[in-house]
């Protein structure tokens, strides 16, 4: 009996060992990126456009012969905006040999920060995640690569100031989705209120954020705000536009953070004619007229296919292209530094930290990612709804770097 068991035991271990070793396929001339997406969960309105944009850019790069002779392979996993699924997706990506993880979602970024640092694989959190991750010395493997909520907050205040011709003594309402991401810019805004001498009042919208009649009424008629800074997610930005419009508050006195700023939000609010004047912060260029987008269209034409319909939603699609482009740039830098060798997460991290002077025809801001600044400057643009489309209202700008630096330094 005992010998029998021993044999079975040995066989099982042997089987397991072969099974275990045979796992990672010999990847030749291929760089793997793990792409986390949400096409079905709470923020699916973003994912269904952003992820195709990401894939199309990667496809374009491969179509043009890859990066330094390597093909890029982006493995997408949809995590439904749930953290356990995100963890599982990460482990799967790691198993597939990913040298870079494209995170999606603030809770996922926080949950994976420790893991990424231990495994030394860089992860990017454009437009979400923790603003404190800008500090590359504290968060060596997290790269916001686009304006964090803190940078968006300072930009919103500066934009409001310009629109009103000064901030002193003005009343600004902050209308936000009542979750951690929504509250993140609060310390920055409070600081700026004290510094610039304007009055700040906060109006929280409880999840799921589709009911804000009371808050909007309060802003427009009781508080009589001079300007509104809105930071909403999912369905709620469209509701805010609708309610503000209904009550007669001028939308040109509203500026939204990056997740309330897409074509889909405007259409859900009743179309571009309703939202005329609405301002929105963007971390990627908006509109169909960028050379890289033309290249993608040409690629599809050469394949004898129609360009994907997702391209029509330029805000999120372009963000997907921007994220992919920055990733490819980091990988290019890593490969250049290590010609012929296999790159690891450490190399890609160094690759990110050398990104500079790369604009993709205006789609990407003048980023400069360094070992200490993983945000790349925190550049944004403001677009305004005008005549049926988004029109650029400002060029790339960043504001109050001293205030941001103070908070980033103080953050744990």
């Amino acid at each position, binding site marked *: 009996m005992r010998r029998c068991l021993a044999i079975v035991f040995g066989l099982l271990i042997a089987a397991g060992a072969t099974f275990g070793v045979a796992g990672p396929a010999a990847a030749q001339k291929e760089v793997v990126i793990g792409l986390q997406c949400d096409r079905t969960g709470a923020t699916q309105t973003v994912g269904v456009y952003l*992820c195709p944009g990401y894939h199309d850019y990667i496809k374009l790069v491969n179509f043009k012969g890859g990066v330094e002779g390597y093909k890029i392979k982006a493995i997408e996993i*949809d995590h*439904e905006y749930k953290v356990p699924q995100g963890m*599982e997706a990460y482990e799967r990506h*790691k198993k597939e040999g990913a040298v870079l993880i494209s995170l999606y979602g*603030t809770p996922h970024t926080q*949950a994976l920060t*420790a893991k990424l640092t231990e495994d030394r694989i860089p992860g990017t959190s454009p437009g979400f995640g923790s603003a404190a991750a800008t500090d590359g010395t504290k968060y060596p493997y997290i790269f916001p690569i686009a304006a964090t909520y803190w940078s968006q907050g300072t930009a919103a205040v500066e934009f409001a100031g310009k629109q009103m011709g000064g901030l002193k003594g003005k009343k600004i309402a902050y209308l936000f989705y009542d979750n*951690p991401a929504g*509250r993140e810019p609060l310390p920055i805004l409070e600081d700026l209120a004290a510094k610039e001498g304007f009055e700040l009042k906060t109006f929280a919208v409880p999840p799921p954020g589709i009911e804000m009649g009371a808050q909007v009424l309060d802003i427009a008629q009781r508080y009589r705000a001079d300007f509104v800074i809105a930071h909403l997610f999912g369905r709620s930005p469209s509701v805010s536009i609708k309610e503000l419009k209904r009550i007669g508050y001028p939308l040109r006195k509203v500026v939204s953070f990056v997740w309330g700023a897409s074509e889909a939000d405007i259409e859900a609010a009743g179309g571009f004619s309703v939202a005329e004047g609405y301002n929105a912060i963007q971390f990627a260029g908006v509109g169909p007229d960028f050379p890289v987008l033309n290249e993608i269209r040409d690629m599809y034409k050469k394949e004898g296919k129609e360009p994907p319909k997702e391209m029509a939603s330029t805000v999120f699609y372009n963000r997907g292209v921007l994220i992919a482009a920055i990733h490819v740039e980091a990988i290019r830098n890593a490969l250049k530094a290590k010609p012929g060798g296999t790159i690891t997460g450490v190399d890609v991290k160094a690759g990110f930290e050398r990104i500079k002077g790369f604009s993709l025809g205006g789609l990407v801001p003048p980023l400069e990612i360094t070992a200490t600044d993983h945000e790349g400057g925190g550049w944004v643009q403001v677009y305004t709804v005008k005549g049926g489309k988004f029109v650029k209202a400002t060029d790339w700008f960043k504001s109050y770097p001293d205030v941001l630096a103070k908070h980033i330094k103080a953050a744990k």
Partner: protein
Amino acid sequence: MIHRECGVLKTTYEADMALYPLPIARWTVAVIAVLMFLILPLSVEEYYLSIVNLVSIAVVGALGLNILVGYTGQISIGHGAFMSVGAYTAANLAVRLGLPFWVALPAGGLMAALVGAVVGIPSLRIKGLYLAIATLAGQLIIEWTINHVTWISGGVQASINVPRPRLFGYPIATQRQMYFFLLVFAAVAILATMNLVRSRIGRAFIAIRDHDIAAEIIGINIFRYKLLAFAISSFYAGVTGVLYTYYLGVANYEQFQITVSIDYLAMIIIGGLGSVLGSIFGAIFVTLLPIVIRLTMESFGGLLFSSGAVLNIIPNLRLILFGMLIIFFLVVEPEGLNRLWRNIRNYFRIWPFAY
């Protein structure tokens, strides 16, 4: 788990009280233990262990909820919140006081038990759907509190980074190390539940579930046992939350929202109410099904759709299939996977002489 009976031949109290009365059952458990503790972790890639880790955490939570819903008959839609109570208690203790996990973990469980017992007070007056709504209120209140009281949540981000648990000076960080860490707690939870439900307390729970007035008449203190059920169940939930926190390295309230409560209810309903094995089956089923569907779709989806479409179809089809399979299993066996397993076992017991 797998055992056959052949008359009652017990002659000692020890034999009567044994958890596994038959040698074959003991052997099965021993084999499973060897498989889980030795063969699996030594032979499988970290990715697969990470899936088992998620299952281990889910098993603890599902067992706890089953004690309350399956054994005591009191419904709760607030377990997600109890998990967050445990998670934030442990995170605060670990970060502010620097306490090790073997203090923070039970403390998190106890705090959750306390809160759970308070939320359970309405169960003394109301039952069924009304109780469900009362616990739902508990979920929302706890969520709101954690979200807004920065003293608990550690700042506007409402997330606290927790250091890795340490054992004898070594950090438990990789998936393989976590595997043993979590598996031990899952095993302890299984063993504790099995013993609990056959003890005096467990019998009282079952009596309350079957008929609370009858239970009161035969001398069971309904007040005490209902609250005890809530407390024990919330203790498990709290421990689940702590395990989650240590596993991810962060306590974040967005991981414990109402959908989590619903997921855990789904686990025990699919697995089988009022059974330990059912909780395990349910936890495995609900955790693995989305992953298995995705892996299948990735392998075979390309045969049916173009590669661009497949990326969009996989996640959506996964949700549809997930729902359909749950309905399928519930139609096939309303009493859950545990009953299905027992039917299979009973069939093979007399095979090939079935009647």
